[in-house]
């Protein structure tokens, strides 16, 4: 087994330390080492977006980032989006719009939508579709997801 490296990072606003092998992706670290299983593995090669997280303010596929690369950085995951007693407006909008069916892609979509609205609070429908094109959903046909993100933008 490869020697494990010590990494210190900020995760959802809190400092965390972990050990990981150099070959482990951030997705593996989140899921297997830190037991945050909200980010999902759909393809493990950056095509489905189910593992989307925000790294230093930038949307990334956590399957394409190594765990050791997060040293000294800040990682936001789906587990950090809601307040303890209140959902984020994007989460509310997903529920109100029935924008999820099986829900496996939902954490990734919410992280992507959050990254979009953090950067562009008033996107057009086309801008939403362009931004979310890196997230695959096989259940909904995207209609209600796009509406949810537009609603969340209007609500914020």
């Amino acid at each position, binding site marked *: *087994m490869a020697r494990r490296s010590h990494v210190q990072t900020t995760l959802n606003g809190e400092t965390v330390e972990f050990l990981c*092998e150099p*070959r482990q992706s951030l997705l593996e670290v989140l*899921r297997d080492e830190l*037991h*945050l*299983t*909200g*980010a*999902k*593995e*759909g*393809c*493990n*090669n950056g*095509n*489905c977006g*189910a593992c989307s997280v925000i790294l230093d303010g930038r949307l990334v596929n956590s399957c394409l980032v190594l765990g050791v690369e997060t040293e000294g950085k800040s990682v936001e*995951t*789906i*587990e950090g*989006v*809601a307040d303890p007693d209140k*959902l984020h407006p994007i*989460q509310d909008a*997903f*529920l*109100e*719009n*029935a924008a*999820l*069916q*099986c*829900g*496996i*892609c*939902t*954490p990734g979509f*919410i992280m992507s939508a959050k990254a979009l609205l953090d950067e562009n609070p008033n996107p057009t429908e086309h801008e*939403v*579709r*362009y931004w*979310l*094109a*890196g*997230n*695959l*959903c*096989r*259940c*909904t*046909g*995207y*209609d*209600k*997801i*796009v*509406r949810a993100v537009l609603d969340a933008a209007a609500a914020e």
Partner: protein
Amino acid sequence: MLENKEYKVIGTRPIRHDGVDKVTGRALYGADFQAAGLLHGRVLRSPHAHAHIISIDTSRAEALPGVKGVVTAKDLPNPGDKIADLGEGAVNLKHLCDNILASDKVLYKGHAVAAVAATNPHIAEEACTLIDVEYEVLPPVLEVRQAMESDAPILHDTIRTTSLGETGDEPSNVASHIQHKLGDPEKGFAEADVIIEREFVTGTVHQGYIEPHNATAHYNADGQLTIWCSTQGAFTVREQVAEILQYPISKIKVVPMEIGGGFGGKISVYIKPVAALLAKKTGKPVKVLMNRADVFEGTGPTPASYIRVKMGATKAGKLTAAQAYLAFEAGAYPGSPVGPGAMCIFAPYNIENVIIDGYDVVVNKPKTAPYRAPGAPNAAFGSETVVDEIAEKLGIDPLEIRLLNAAKEGDRRADGPVHPRIGCIETVEAAKAHPHYTAPNGKKHHGRGVASGYWFNIGLESSVTINVNSDGTINLIEGSTDIGGTRASIAMQAAEVLGIPAESVNPSVVDTNSVGYTAVTGGSRTTYATGYAAYEAAQDVKQQMIARAAKLWEVDAANVQFADGEFSSINGKEEQISFRDLCARLGETGGPIVGSGTVNPGGAGGAYATHVVDVVVDEETGKVDILRYTAVQDAGKAIHPSYVEGQIQGGAVQGIGWALNEEYIYNAEGEMTNASFLDYRMPTCLDLPMIDAVIVEVPNPGHPYGVRGVGEVPIVPPMAAIANAIYDAIGIRMTELPMSPDRLLKAMGKI
């Protein structure tokens, strides 16, 4: 046409009960399962599409530090020639077992041959590369017509063509032939003024669920086997694993985790028995996960097919005869959905003279699995394109010709049974009246197309238990895994009976030890049949509550009535108590109340859909863009309209992907060359407009609230609707799926 009663809960749009867990990342899917001492399993797969296995040497893999166990087909019980009884579907057990781990022959690239459990997934993966398998490579058979030729390589020496109880003498790749015949097709064609006959080819496509297959298994020292997995049906997993491992069902508990999409593809088991074998061998819990390439190459897609359709009509547009030849690729083992394809192909029409022949043919591709209305989309691509061409030849509006010939209650389906009350006409009428259909459509390279579709839906067994809480809420225990909001649609039916809000129901999907037998979440049956069981369980609660009210008031139960959430006494005493208040008094009136309902309803009621689509074709690149899409569907009664719309929109978009992009691309050796989400191109939101879902409600007499299944039929019309729109845009009939840019450029003579 609509005879919908007013309901309090049904037809409203509450937040789904599992919603918060799913938007916060807390919901636990199969791969999220953790256990102390967990080992990780990986599967070694065949690099060849067709080969004899000469030998497997696992010694180098076993010697790798961190490896705890390796299994091959030798670890499975010898299936002999037993027929596995999976309820309705009897399956050759050797086929079932060989698809889990190949014993003597590999039949497709990706076929599992061995599996490793190790202390981490990377070691397991590495160990797989150290397993030495010697193959004798055989020529692959990759296409259905090729497989049917008399000199084609034979995949199975044991397969003889069966034809409704009759079996052929010679080994064949044609596993079965089916036929439906109604009236006198020869006479019908003789009466026709116009006859159109066309051939169609469709590609292999995958369900494309985002969550790969997963399974964690553990054996207790007492032999109890527990499997945590995502599945469309925990009970079918239990049955299949019991058959494959020859192990009693009472010693197997299947715990369904949340499931990340299935669409039919998570009914057959693949790695669940493998996880069990590895757990047995290592004495530890073992989690086996597929990666995306495993999913494409090692699980059942829906088949490629070759289809011929011939239809005839009079000048007035009356369809007089129809004929279809359907040859479906079963993949490595028999069992393509040619049966449902044959059942559905002409079902939107009342045609007196019909003959349909279907062939189930094995080829060197993964064994096919159900995919949303299995078989019907392939078939409808053919028939709905031919209907469009007939309408065009006769100068009749394509929706008008559908209305002229629409199937209705009492008409006989080509396979024999008579239609109950159905909403075929209603969906066509709604499409015709929709502003989309009447909007202008005349720009160059823009086109509009329509198509209809049918799916018969199924009922099957469902069980529900309701526990009444003292605060006026109920806990609803069910066995149907929730893939698209069915906790809500089932809970709402119980809530309606008991006059309580949807939010007062706490639904739980539980393991196979904790609820009565429940068939899969599939066949568009869950809201229909499990909802029906919830209705029955709630009725049981209601009756018991009436008895409690009677006891409270010292009257006869016959003198208590229940309406709008209130119990009241009739004949004499003027007493009244709400459901909620009575729940608080269960202790003093006799103790807890548990209601139960179990059903196996036969009246699923078929579902119809009619879709309208506008496209634009880029003449330079051959790319087709969807400009506008309207999908009309009969839902019987939409319990939670948002999730009904979601099913319609999602089905339509899967159909758009099937129509325009999706296919397994094989090389001459039978290797799939596009086994990733980058190269197997499913629609993204940038490829699509909003999908206008229009719900028509023609109540199903086979359900207390009129529900019809809604999940499957929306994938039936899109391929033909888009082909018809492309014809409208550029004047070329596309007869091969997918209608990808290269095929369009070829059809336009540009390459």
